[in-house]
Every structure is written in structure tokens, then in C-alpha cells.
């Protein structure tokens, strides 16, 4: 059954983008509405998919498959590149997350009042490529969307960013592009190691397929190829499969980001405008984790499990290093950016466990971090838009002046520091629980990971205390500017807060969708 509903998720924003491009500038007030309506329609489509989604079925669903092109590599071999979309439990959770976060970011973009046409068309382009990335079942398609999303992101940071935006956007672009180059190397090597048996016999030429389902089936491995299991080839002293995995780890690790490849993140976040920060933290970072699970683990499970300790240690270092850095920041947005690094570390620890609990924890953590970090960046945006100051020390006793804001901040902060009944706790708990149960990881890694939770409690509580408790005190010129949340802001933060509480109280809401696919991946 090909309903085309997944294609609509990519086409809708593209059409919206096109519509904005062709509407003359006289209608510039409509751009944001077009963007918002597109996002609402998208969310409706995504919820439709979610409603029809069969939770027990671990395979890809709603598959749309059509031939894109065949590219011969000479007279003996063909690259077969198809347009294949599908969702399984892993991707649907992230598709839903993206759709929610994009909707919130679209609302938050209403403040943009400079080159609106470019902004909203880029915004919708970004939406299309992110969704395409999560929906792609063909490696080529995945990679194209993965790489294409850098371009709108670069301009979104570069044009609408803060003072140092040129540096930050270029750094972001070059870092992530270098990462994607590594992924490209792996893609090429993987593809030329696997043949599509059916088409190979049909065309009487070697057919290389980019289909994830073909690539992960070890029966398709060509025995003389570099990724062959029977005849291991060594590259720079390492078995080729492990070498490829390490390239992927770095490639997706940059995106994630994991220490030591994280340095682009604080810069990009600090300079990016609020909605772009929200997207960056809420969705784009998740592609790193998604890639590790989808590409690295599904296709190279043996090599990935071999490096469980490395993944765990990287996660651990990210947790602690990120937390220590966050502890020391005076800039609210930078503090949040480093807390992102720290929280994404739990995703790595969950993955490193290589058991069902750990994987569920990792994906849940991605989902919850998507919601929470969006909230956090919106919170930083609220203060910044009012006063153009993000210094933690500039504010004191905000609770008296802005009670609703304080409530939202409390939910986001306590959610992030892992208070039970909020979503952050579930993700961290499951990840660490999985890691403790894992045979592949020394118990020391999750044990030390717990200190990350303690550290995050310290910096979040300290910040909360400094900014919100005590007598109201700030610079004279800010006093009149610091008003409580507007209705839109309450809507944005409120809906995210509800989600945090909902998934925190009832984690099964997410887990029942992802569990069967993740268990299948583990087999």
C-alpha cells in the first residue's frame, strides 16, 4: 500500500517554501503564517501516521519505493539509487519530535522582522530536509538530506545570528561537513561491499544498492570486498569494519556532538537566533544519535559492539566535561548549550549498553532532550529578547516580577536535572540502568555517569537560585522591559512543559512506539 503520506511530509514544506519564494514582498506579513500553517498541516500528517502506525511491527512501515536512477560505474557494475521512505519505531519518535519542535520554532519565528522571505523559505527547506533525513530508508537519500540541511542552517545562523555569526556559522558548517565527509567515505565503502542479489542476476552486472535493508543483510556482502566478514581486510592496522565504524563514530559524533568534537556547538548556539537554537538543539543533534543507531549499529553491529567501551567513555566524558563547563558559564545560553553536550552524553551511554533498556533509554533521552532543550533555549530567548542581555549575573529575583516565566523555567530546569516524574529522569534512568545491566561495559562508566546528574543539579539549581530567588534586582533600564510571558510564549513553553510532564509520568507513551523496533535492531 503506497499512500504517499510520507512523501507529503517532505513535499509540504517544500511547497510552502516555494510559495513564500514566489509571493511578492508586498505580502511579507503572510510569510510567517504560511510557515506556521505548513507546520500545523505537517503535524496533522505526522499524527495521522502515528495513529495508523502498527506498534508491534518492528519493520519499516508506510514504505514508498520508487526507482530514482541507476548510475553505472563502468561496464561491470551499477549503483542503484532508489527513493525509499519508511518509518519504524526509531524514526517515528524523532519524526514526531521534529514536527513538534518545528511547530514551536515556527511560532517563535514570528518575531523575525528582517529579510522575512529568505528566512521563512529557508526554515521550510530545513524542515523538509530534516524530515527527509529521518524518513529515508536509502543511504543515498539519507546522506543527501543529511548534507543538504547544513546549507539552510548555515544561512539561518549566518544572516539572523548575533554579532559573531559569521565565525559561528562557518565553524558549524565546516565541522559538520567534515563529519559528513567521513560518512560519505563509509557510505561508498559500504555500498561497494554489498550487492543486491536480485538485480545483479537481472542486469547481469554487479548492482550495488543503497537500501538500508540490503546493506544490513550480511548475506549480501561480497566475499572479496573490504567489509567482508570472512576475509577481513585491514586498513591502517585495523580491521576494515572497525575502521569504518570509527569513521562513522566521528562523523555522527560531530553532529551529536560528543566531546572532543563539540566545540562548534556553544558558538553556534550563542550566535543563533532563538528559533534556530531551538531547532539545532531540539532536532539536529538527534541526527547524530539516530545515525549511530541506524547506520553504524544496523549495518556494522559486530564492530559497533566491539567499541562499546569507547562509546561509553565518550558519552561519559561528554557528560562530565559538558557539565563542568556549564557550571562555569556566566552566559545563560552558553550554559544551556553545554548542558546539551552533557545530556547528549547519556544517549551514548544508553547506546553503549547494547541492550533493549539502554537503547530505549537512549532514544527516550533524545526525545526528552529535544523537548527540554527547546524549552531551555526558548527560556533564554525570553530574557534576551526583552533586555538583549543573557548574563546570569544581571538578573536576580525574577520570580516576583515574572511568576509564570518562573514556573516554566522550573519545569524545564527540574526536567533537565532529572527530577522524577519529568521526562529527563526517565531517559537518564533508562540509559544508566541499561548500562549497569550490560555485559559489555564496566560498571564504572554508568557509576561515574551518575555524577553528571549531580553536576547538572548543581548548575541548574545555582542558576535558578541566582536568577529567580531573592529580592528583585536588575539594572535600572531593564526594569520596565521585564514583563511576564506573552500569550504566545505561554503557548510555546506551556505545550512543551505539558509534554515533558506527560512523557515523564507516562513514559510508555514514547516507549511503546519505539520498543519493538529497537528490540529488533538488537537481534
Amino acid at each position, binding site marked *: 500500500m503506497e499512500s504517499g503520506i510520507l512523501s507529503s511530509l517532505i513535499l509540504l514544506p517544500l511547497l510552502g517554501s516555494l510559495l513564500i519564494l514566489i509571493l511578492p514582498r508586498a505580502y511579507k506579513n503572510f510569510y510567517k503564517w504560511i510557515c506556521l500553517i505548513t507546520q500545523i498541516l505537517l503535524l496533522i500528517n505526522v499524527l495521522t501516521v502515528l495513529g495508523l502506525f502498527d506498534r508491534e511491527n518492528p519493520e519499516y512501515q508506510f514504505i514508498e519505493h520508487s526507482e530514482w536512477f541507476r*548510475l553505472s560505474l563502468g561496464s561491470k557494475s551499477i549503483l542503484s539509487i532508489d527513493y525509499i521512505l519508511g518509518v519504524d519505531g526509531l524514526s517515528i519518535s524523532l519524526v514526531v519530535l521534529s514536527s513538534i519542535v518545528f511547530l514551536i520554532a515556527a511560532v517563535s519565528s514570528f518575531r523575525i522582522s528582517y529579510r522575512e522571505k529568505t528566512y521563512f523559505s529557508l526554515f521550510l527547506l530545513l524542515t523538509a530536509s530534516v524530515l527527509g533525513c529521518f524518513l529515508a530508508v536509502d543511504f543515498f537519500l539519507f546522506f*543527501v538530506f543529511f548534507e543538504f540541511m547544513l546549507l539552510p542552517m548555515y544561512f539561518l545562523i*549566518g544572516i539572523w545570528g548575533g554579532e559573531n555569526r*559569521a565565525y559561528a556559522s562557518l565553524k558549524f558548517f565546516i565541522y559538520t561537513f567534515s563529519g559528513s565527509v*567521513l560518512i560519505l567515505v563509509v557510505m561508498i565503502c559500504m555500498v561497494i561491499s554489498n550487492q543486491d542479489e536480485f538485480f545483479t542476476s537481472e542486469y547481469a552486472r554487479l548492482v*550495488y544498492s543503497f537500501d538500508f535493508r540490503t546493506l544490513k543483510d550480511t548475506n549480501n556482502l561480497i566475499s572479496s570486498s*573490504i567489509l567482508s566478514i570472512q576475509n577481513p581486510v585491514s586498513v591502517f592496522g585495523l580491521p576494515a569494519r572497525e575502521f569504518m565504524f570509527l569513521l562513522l563514530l566521528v562523523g555522527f559524533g560531530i553532529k551529536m556532538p560528543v566531546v572532543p568534537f563539540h566545540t562548534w556547538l556553544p558558538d553556534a548556539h550563542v550566535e543563533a537566533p532563538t528559533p534556530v537554537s531551538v531547532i539545532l538543539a531540539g532536532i539536529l543533534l538527534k541526527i547524530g544519535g539516530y545515525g549511530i543507531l541506524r547506520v553504524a549499529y544496523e549495518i556494522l553491529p559486530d564492530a559497533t559492539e566491539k567499541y562499546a567501551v569507547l562509546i561509553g567513555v565518550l558519552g561519559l566524558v561528554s557528560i562530565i566535561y559538558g557539565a563542568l563547563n556549564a557550571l562555569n558559564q556566566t552566559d545563560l545560553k552558553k550554559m544551556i548549550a553545554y548542558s546539551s553536550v552533557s545530556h547528549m552524553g547519556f544517549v551514548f551511554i544508553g547506546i553503549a549498553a547494547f541492550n533493549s533498556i539502554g537503547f530505549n533509554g537512549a532514544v527516550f533521552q533524545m526525545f526528552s532532550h529535544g523537548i527540554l532543550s527547546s524549552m531551555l533555549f526558548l527560556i533564554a530567548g525570553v530574557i534576551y529578547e526583552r533586555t538583549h542581555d543573557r548574563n546570569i549575573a544581571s538578573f536576580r529575583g525574577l520570580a516576583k516580577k515574572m511568576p509564570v516565566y518562573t514556573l516554566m523555567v522550573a519545569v524545564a530546569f527540574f526536567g533537565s536535572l532529572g527530577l522524577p516524574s519529568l521526562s529527563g529522569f526517565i531517559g537518564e534512568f533508562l540509559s544508566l540502568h541499561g548500562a549497569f545491566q550490560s555485559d559489555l561495559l564496566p560498571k564504572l562508566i554508568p557509576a561515574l555517569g551518575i555524577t553528571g546528574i549531580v553536576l547538572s543539579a548543581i548548575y541548574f539549581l545555582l542558576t535558578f537560585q541566582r536568577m529567580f530567588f531573592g529580592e528583585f534586582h536588575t539594572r535600572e533600564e531593564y526594569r520596565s522591559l521585564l514583563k511576564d510571558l506573552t500569550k504566545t510564549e505561554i503557548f510555546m513553553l506551556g505545550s512543551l512543559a505539558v509534554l515533558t510532564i506527560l512523557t515523564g509520568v507516562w513514559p510508555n507513551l514514547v516507549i511503546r512506539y519505539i520498543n519493538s523496533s529497537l528490540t529488533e535492531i538488537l537481534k
Partner: protein
Amino acid sequence: MNILEEIFQSSTRILPEWILFLGILAACLGLAFTKEGNKLPFYLFALTVILYVYSLIISAPQVTVQGESFYQGLLHLDKRALLIKQLAGISAIIFMVHVRLFSYKFPGEVYVLVLFVLLGISFLSMTTHFLTAYVSLELISLASYVLVASEKMKKNFEAGIKYLIFGATASAIMLFGISLFYGLTHSLDFSSAEFARKLALNPEGPVQIISFMVLGGFLFKIAAAPFHHWVPDVYESTSTPVISFLSFAPKAAGFIFISRIVAADFTNLNYLLALVIALSLVVGNFAALWQNDFKRLLGYSGIAHSGFILTGLITGNNSDVYGTFFYLVSYLPITMGSFFLADFIHKKARTLDIPSMAGLGKKYPLLAFNALVILISLVGLPPTIGFLAKLVVFSSLADAASVSSGYLLYGLLVFGLFNAAIALYYYLRPAYMMIIRDPAEKNSSFSYDLLITLALSYFSFTLLYLFLKPEVISEWVSSVF
């Protein structure tokens, strides 16, 4: 069949070259009998090129994949040669359009010289014989030396002299190599069985060195490091349509000749090529990082692209030199589009200095969009054909590496792709200046050129369209193998 008869017989088969030759004669006569500034040479040029391309299309069905030899093996016409000739013809047409749209007032000699280059390319593309190769390479070179210096400014002379000296040296070395080959094999046709048989009697090392000497002349033509020193000056000072043509057509001919040497397979050139590729990538990409002149930057990018195109020549079990041809075809709209873009920017901003392009995109959004598409296809980002071209050459490189399992080739794979990441920085700078930066001063002059904008948009449309429908290239190129 006696020799005279064969010569006549062969002569009937090279109609496209006859057309070029007669066109050159007519244009020379036209030059001699008209005043300076007369448009007759241009029209004769246009007529000749169009007839040339037409005759290529007409003669296409008769050409076979294996090809046939004329003039006792001096020429060898096969589908690959035809492909290169068609590409060169197309690039001459683009040259023509470029000249017309920007209303260049070249002296008539320029058109005659371009026809000479085209004639040289035509012969070079269909030979496996060192003698023809040398003569036609010199025909291309001599005409291009003059073309480079034809604007008669100081910097043109500097570039022309540099080009001439390096070119002459490269030719001399090549000739020396050819003479050594002749001494070893008593044959100048490297595709013949005798050549390979006699060469096999010699140790591998010297043969490789001689091959490198011979390749040098062609590596010079395709602007690969370490034979690249002429590139930046020549690219910067030569007038844009001319260098646009020279940046593609002679290169294409150089590549097909190198691919023939590789395909003749008398010695394993993989490692030698890997070295040249790595050098070209390093030199091209790193030197380009510090360029402020857009055309100079394109010069260095041309060096790097030569490295990428050569990558397709490293072959393994399941791939052949197909990658090079695929890349070449997609390189045509990329490079000529980028020079078209350069001229357009020059027209709007009065300079090619990258920092002074600031804010251009705000005034001309369509220009900025087209520039972005062309620049990202130079980088090799999706969704442009540049990405697929890189994918194809690196897939065949990976295949070669998995066969011979050489670290060197794996290293080259990773290194080559990493160079794309370095390239990102300098290619993005013009886009950054145009789109992100605000203009330094309020310059209110606004001019609108519908035709040029359309032509530029056509280039970027091609780049995007070919990404979605690469079968167009794929089928065209597959048919020559």
C-alpha cells in the same frame, strides 16, 4: 590497398575536422579582407562551430565503441573520442554565447585561435599515436599561448610568457619520454600489441618513470600539480570567455589521452596517479584558501578538480575509467557556469575581488541564488551534479582500493574527500559575501540584464536537474564503453 588510397579513404572520414579546417581558412581570409572590428570573423566562427557540432551529431551512428583506425594508425576514431569532441564543440558554443551576451569586442584573431584549439582537441581526442598526440598537443598549446597574451596588457604578457615557458619545458620532457619509448619499442602507437610486448621486456621502474615524463605534457595541459604553475596568472588575466573555454576543452582532450594511456595498461599507473591526485588536491585547495580574486580562485579550484577527475582513472576489478568521463561531462556546466558567473559578478560589481562582492545578493537575489548553486556544485554538495560526480569517481576509487587493498588508495579516498571539506571554506566565501554580508556602501545603481540572468539560471538549472536525472549523463557516457 595502397597507401595513397588509404589516405584518401581516411580523409573522407574526418569531415568534422575538415569543417574546422575550412572554417579556419575562411576566417583567416575574412580577417585579411575586412577592417578591424568587423563582425565577419565572429559569424564565420559561429557558423564553423555549429557545422562542426552538427557534423559530429550526424556522424555519431557510424562511430563504434572499439573504433577504427585511419592513416595507418595515426588516428583512431571511437565513441570516446566522439564524446570529447562533442563536449569541446558544446563548450565552443557556450564560449560563443558568452561572448555575445557580454558583448565582448575581441579582435578577429581570437576566434581563429579558438578554432585552432578546437582542431587540436579534435585530433588529440582520437589518437593513440604519440606522433599525432604531440603535434595536436602543440597545436592546442601554441594557440592557447597566443590567446592568453592576446589582450596585450602587461599582465597578459606575464601570464603568456609563464604559460609558454612552462609549456615548452613540459613538451620537451614529454618529447624526451616519447623518444625513450620509441627507443625501447620501435613503435609510437602505444595501443599496439607490439608496443606492450616490447615494453614488457624492460624493468618496471624505468618504464614508470618514462610514462611519467610522457604524461607530464598532458598533466600540464590539464593543470594537475606539479605542472600547475602557470594556472593562477593565466586564469586571472585572460579574458573570461576565453579562459572559460580553455578551462574545459583542452583539459577534456588531455584527460582522454591520459585515459587512453591508462587503458592501454602497459604499466600500472595507479600509484603514480595517486601521487599526482594527492598533490593536485593539496595545491589546489590550500592555495585557493588565500585567494581574493575570484578568477584566480577558480584557477586553483581547477587544479583541485583535475585531481578529482584523475581519481576516476584509478581502476579496479568492477570499475573502469568511466568515472573520469562522467566527471568530465558534469564538469562542463560546472566550470563554464562558474566563469559565466564570474563575468556576471564583474559586470555588476565592477570587480572580482571577493570582499567587495559584499551585499550583492541583496540587490540581485536571483544572482545570489545562482551563485550559490554553482558554488555548491563546485564543492560537491547535494543537490547538484557535482555531488554525484564525486560519488562516482570515489566509488570507483574505493573499488580499486578493495582490489589491490593498498593503504595508499584508502588514504587517497579519505584524503580526497576531506579536501572537499577544505574546499567548502573558500567556495563559500563568495556566497557568504554576497548573501550574508551587508554592502559596505549604499550603491544605488541597479541594472537588470534579462538575457544574462536567464543564461546563468539555465546553468544552475542544469546543475540541479542533472542531480535529479543523472541518467542523461550516465546513458551518454555508458554508450562509449
